[in-house]
């Protein structure tokens, strides 16, 4: 056995290989859950009956007219549920509600021979509602003291002492929007009862074990009677961590009741109006700095908008509180977190899981306060970085704190920050109607699930008699390249070429009790489990090889399909021959692997402990140009340096960094969720419920110059092959885009003033920000030039 981080010579990890399904992707041959329906006969299609009220009691439901619609086979209601009428894990998400909790809440599902039949059937279901008072905005919820779940407080030092006699004290408020996942593949499930009576579900889910668990409890079955497979997802981003369960359960229920396979796929509007999103937040804060600009104290109250049920809102808030420090040492901290209950979709996991929200609060504070302190924002940020030996407000030592300082310094040079800073200033002096902004922001993100039990994973590795390898693990593929990395890990651990390793789809009957593929932990956890399984097999093979090669088992080496005595590759035997011989010697050629992250502990009531295995670091520089006539802007250049440890798969990791940045920048710029907050008939309706009204970044928002690099020589010991997680951290690099926009807007006015900027910073928001800056001049800039 080798230590977890050590890389063997000639291993496949670290190679820049394309995504393992790339050839299938580009030819349209890669299959997704809803592509599988055409392979089945007698398929039924499901369509929801969505309530048109933000909150209401269901007083009567009559499905008889629906059953008269040609092609309608069955209408599913609460009366059909043999087990628990619940789509969640907390018992607070009725699958068929008697009280509608948000506009678009599904009260019944119609099954039909065609999608049109099911849809027309849904229109024919008669439902009477008694509207009830509702809370839509977070402000209304706060005013009504409508909260849910636990409230928690992160505390360190003495907050009063922190503010007492501080050189500078500022306070403010900040409200910012959520984000729709907009995975290109909407939620989908396909269920049937198989030839052995097992409930078999194909589901686009990040958490197959929980999909299995919820389906079983809805059907009144045991987990062993339900199998969930996730072939791949067309994007997840956290949006398929909890949301798929109810849809899988509906498809399974329909299948059990009709004896036919049932396909359920949400169209885009259904997906957007029914499923949870990134939590919008409201923050009220007070901050103290010392004479030199060092943070002394932060007190804040964060309120997230959890929507109608808890879902993952509590752990999301915990992570927000654990990231409000971002990369900065703050001696005195008192931050309260609470979750508003509103009549909206139940907000859920989204890449970063509260981390981005916590971080955004402190970055907004620094961006606003820097001019008031008379310090450049980038200086203020660097000045406050954690130093080696310091700990976070929740008591975790900041390991490798110096790495951020190094990374920052490298990026300042490679991104040519100082020269461009001057150039931007010169440009702004000579351009009255167009201003540029340049900002650099850091990310320090904790890796591991805050909930300690989730930090485990399993794998199943088979070596067949012909030497080919089949691996299974508990993680799911949503585009993040996990399967690619896992193939590289297995090939490395067994010492075979990557093309000898096949990876089979994620299934609950192969690896049970898996954790969600979430928290950026997929490669760390499942990689650990695969490596463990492979090493068990390799140990047995070493014993066999030792005899054949006449050396001690510890001195047998496996590289690229060759097995040889240490130092003598020329005396090697073929891996396939060894496997063949091992079989005849009755050697077990498969193994179940397991991994649990060591060293974690977390007291969620005290908000104290060491919840993270390590921190992931990164920084980004963004330069923008803003048109003073409209607030429209362009991203001129982005430079990123990200610490991914020693990358397992550089092409995959660079892709994660770039994609994360653009998604984060999208959240903070274009992507705007709007609910109808009026008292009109559409109260509570999501008004941005389609691709035409909810805008994600397209090609036109891609930075004109986009330089992304991974930090070199960054081995992380204690993690599989010295790597680090990459899924979530880069999203928060997008904060630099928002800070650059703030800089540009501020440049329309005099220096030294606090520049407020709404979030998302849509062109309209930027226009109002720069108008505010211009007005301070006394009259519009255009008149003075």
């Amino acid at each position, binding site marked *: 056995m080798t230590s977890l981080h050590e890389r063997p010579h000639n291993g496949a990890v670290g190679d820049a290989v394309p*995504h393992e*399904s790339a*050839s299938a992707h*580009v030819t349209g041959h890669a299959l997704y859950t809803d592509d599988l329906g*055409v392979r089945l006969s007698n398929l039924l299609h499901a369509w929801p009956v969505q309530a048109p009220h933000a909150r209401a009691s269901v007083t009567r439901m009559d499905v008889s007219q629906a059953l008269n619609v040609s092609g309608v086979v069955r209408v599913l209601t609460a009366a059909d549920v043999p087990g628990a009428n619940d789509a969640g894990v907390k018992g607070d998400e009725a699958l068929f509600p008697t009280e509608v909790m948000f506009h678009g809440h599904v009260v019944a599902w119609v099954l039909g021979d065609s999608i049109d039949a099911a849809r027309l059937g849904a229109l024919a279901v008669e439902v009477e509602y008694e509207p009830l008072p509702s809370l839509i905005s977070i402000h209304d919820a706060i005013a009504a003291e409508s909260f849910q779940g636990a409230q928690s407080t992160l505390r360190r030092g003495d907050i009063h002492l922190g503010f007492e006699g501080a050189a500078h004290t500022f306070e403010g408020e900040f409200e910012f929007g959520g984000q729709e996942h907009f995975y*290109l593949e909407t939620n989908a499930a396909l269920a049937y009862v198989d030839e052995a009576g097992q409930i078999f579900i194909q589901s686009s889910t990040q958490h197959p074990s929980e999909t299995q668990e919820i389906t079983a409890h809805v059907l009144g079955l045991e987990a062993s009677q339900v199998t969930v497979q996730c072939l791949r997802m067309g994007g997840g981003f956290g949006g398929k961590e909890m949301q798929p369960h109810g849809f899988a359960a509906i498809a399974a229920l329909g299948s059990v009741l009709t004896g036919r396979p049932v396909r359920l796929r949400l169209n885009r509007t259904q997906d957007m109006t029914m499923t949870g999103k990134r939590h919008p937040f409201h923050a009220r804060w007070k901050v103290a700095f010392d004479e030199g600009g060092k943070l002394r104290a932060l007190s804040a109250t964060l309120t997230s908008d959890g929507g109608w049920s808890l879902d993952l809102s509590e752990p999301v808030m915990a992570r927000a509180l654990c990231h409000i420090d971002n990369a900065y040492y703050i001696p005195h901290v008192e931050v309260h977190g609470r979750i508003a209950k509103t009549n909206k979709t139940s907000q859920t996991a989204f890449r970063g899981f509260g981390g981005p929200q916590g971080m955004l609060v402190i970055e907004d504070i620094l961006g606003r306060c820097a001019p008031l302190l008379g310090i450049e924002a980038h200086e203020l940020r660097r000045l406050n970085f954690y130093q080696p030996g310091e700990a976070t407000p929740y008591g975790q030592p900041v390991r490798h704190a110096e790495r951020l300082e190094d990374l920052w310094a490298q990026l300042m040079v490679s991104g040519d920050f100082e020269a461009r800073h001057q150039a931007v200033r010169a440009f702004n002096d000579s351009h009255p109607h167009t201003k540029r902004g340049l900002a650099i922001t850091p990310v320090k993100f904790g890796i591991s699930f805050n909930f300690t039990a989730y930090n485990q994973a399993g794998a199943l590795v088979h070596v067949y008699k012909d030497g080919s390898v089949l691996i299974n693990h508990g993680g799911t593929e949503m585009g993040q390249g996990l399967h690619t990395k896992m193939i590289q890990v297995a090939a490395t651990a067994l010492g075979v070429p990557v093309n000898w390793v096949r990876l089979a789809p994620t299934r609950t009957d192969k690896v049970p009790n898996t954790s969600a593929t979430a928290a950026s932990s997929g490669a760390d956890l499942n990689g650990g489990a695969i490596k463990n399984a492979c090493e068990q097999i390799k140990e047995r093979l070493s014993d066999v090889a030792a005899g054949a090669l006449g050396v001690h088992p510890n001195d047998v080496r496996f590289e690229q399909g060759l097995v040889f005595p240490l130092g003598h590759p020329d005396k090697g035997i073929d891996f396939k021959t060894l496997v063949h011989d091992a079989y005849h010697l009755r050697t077990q050629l498969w193994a179940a692997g397991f991994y649990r992250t060591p060293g974690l502990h977390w007291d969620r009531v005290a908000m104290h402990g060491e919840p993270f295995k390590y921190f992931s670091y990164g920084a980004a520089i963004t330069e923008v140009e803003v*048109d003073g006539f409209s607030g429209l802007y362009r991203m001129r250049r982005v430079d990123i340096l990200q610490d991914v440890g020693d990358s397992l798969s550089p092409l995959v990791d660079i892709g994660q960094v770039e994609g994360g940045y653009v998604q984060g920048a999208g959240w903070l710029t274009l992507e705007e969720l709007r609910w109808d907050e009026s008292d009109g008939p559409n109260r509570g309706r999501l*008004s941005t419920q389609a691709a035409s*009204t909810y805008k994600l970044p397209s*090609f036109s928002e891609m930075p004109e110059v986009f330089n992304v690099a991974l930090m070199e020589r960054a081995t992380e010991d204690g993690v599989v092959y010295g790597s680090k997680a990459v899924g979530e951290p880069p999203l928060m690099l997008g904060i630099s885009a928002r800070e650059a926009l703030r800089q540009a807007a501020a440049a329309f006015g005099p220096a030294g003033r606090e520049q407020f900027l709404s979030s998302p910073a849509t062109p309209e928001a930027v226009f109002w920000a720069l108008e505010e800056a211009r007005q301070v001049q006394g009259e519009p800039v255009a008149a003075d030039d």
Partner: protein
Amino acid sequence: MDSFTLTVNGQPREVQGARPHTTLLNWLRDGGLTGCKEGCAEGECGACAVLVSRPDGRGGTRLESVNACLVMLPAMNGQEVITAEGIGSPGHLHPVQHEMAVRGGSQCGYCTPGFVVSMAAEYYRPERKDGEHHAPNGFDIHALSGNLCRCTGYRPIQDAAHALGTPPADDTLGTLRTRPAPAPQPLHLSGPDGDFHRPADLPGALELLAEHPDATLLAGGTDWGVEVNIRHARAGVTIAVDGLAELRELEWHDDHVRIGAGLNLTEIERRLDGRIPLMAEWFPQFASRLIRNSATLGGNIGTASPIGDSPPTLLALDASLILASRQGEREVPLFEFFEGYRQTKLQDGELIRAVKIPLPLAPITGFYKYAKRRFDDISSVAVGIAMQLDGNNVSRIRIGLGGVAATPLRALKTEEALTGQPWTERNVREAAALMGQEGTPLSDHRASAKYRAAMLEQALLKFFFEKTEVVRG
């Protein structure tokens, strides 16, 4: 007739019992070509993009990408479609597929077939020349602006596009371009879900329209497809007019240009080739290439959406419309065409045949579109301006506005205030303030009423500072 054929990936496929509202996307998927994906069903994401064969005007074929979710299957009678599966296979990757695969152009892979299709269309674009569009290989990256990716951040996709060479001489799809494209095939489908007609010529279409005044006219389908998919609209009678030769003319006359209402925006852009600068400025900002490959000028005007992008441009150009019916033709100034929210002067049995733009063109023009996203987005406000100066006096100005009232309109008060006046900063500022009060903008999810009004004002200032020589005073 209840059946017809189309060619898919080189193979003729017979369609039996087709319904008028079945989309090409759903039909392809039901037939097992599941590489074609539904991401939005409204032409915004491009996951369903397919190549279609279209006449190149020189006896050959152009391969163009369109959103299959917006194509009604019967409209494809006799036509040819190529999907990502038909471009290459895992064992034989097409150059576009190869570059996308090896450069990390796919992550989750769901949008990828659509990207491959749009990229292939641009790969085969006959006008593509090295060095154009700021690309060594002349690849216009905006050919991909109608394809959304949520994973990559686009950089590797751009790299893949820019790495492409020229199709080799023996390239299968490339050689397809040398034979004639299929012509539109007349069709009449009749069924319980409605009738679908593709008449052979304009008189035939007008005859049908006279008979069925409530019929839905189908051209590019980029609006109707959304109605069908999202709002589940169903038409008793559909009349496809996009292939009618009489609606596809583009002619230059001494005192006007006449543009057929059935031409799609890509064709118009290509055929005008920059000769109407205001339109040249406007085209790239209209939706995406995928949409422009289908959407027609007639459709954009005929739907009478207050946020359609062509009316502000055409109002500034003082355009008029040629309306045709069985009774004959008449000309209506565009300015008078819109009567109310989605209401026009079109009478029963009448359709838009052509758009007339008077010549000579005003020499100074500008188009300003305000939206969250720079491309592939719907305007919150759009402004078209065309101006003639006599010395430094405004001799004539036309300002078209969209998004600030129930109909597109002209900024009449602003035009009047400026006409005959010196083009100076003081006058423009006064007029801009007036322009901010034109229309009756509303607040919605795209923008606030206040922002819309501010953008009217700012558009005139931007036009002044950026398009004309600034005269103080």
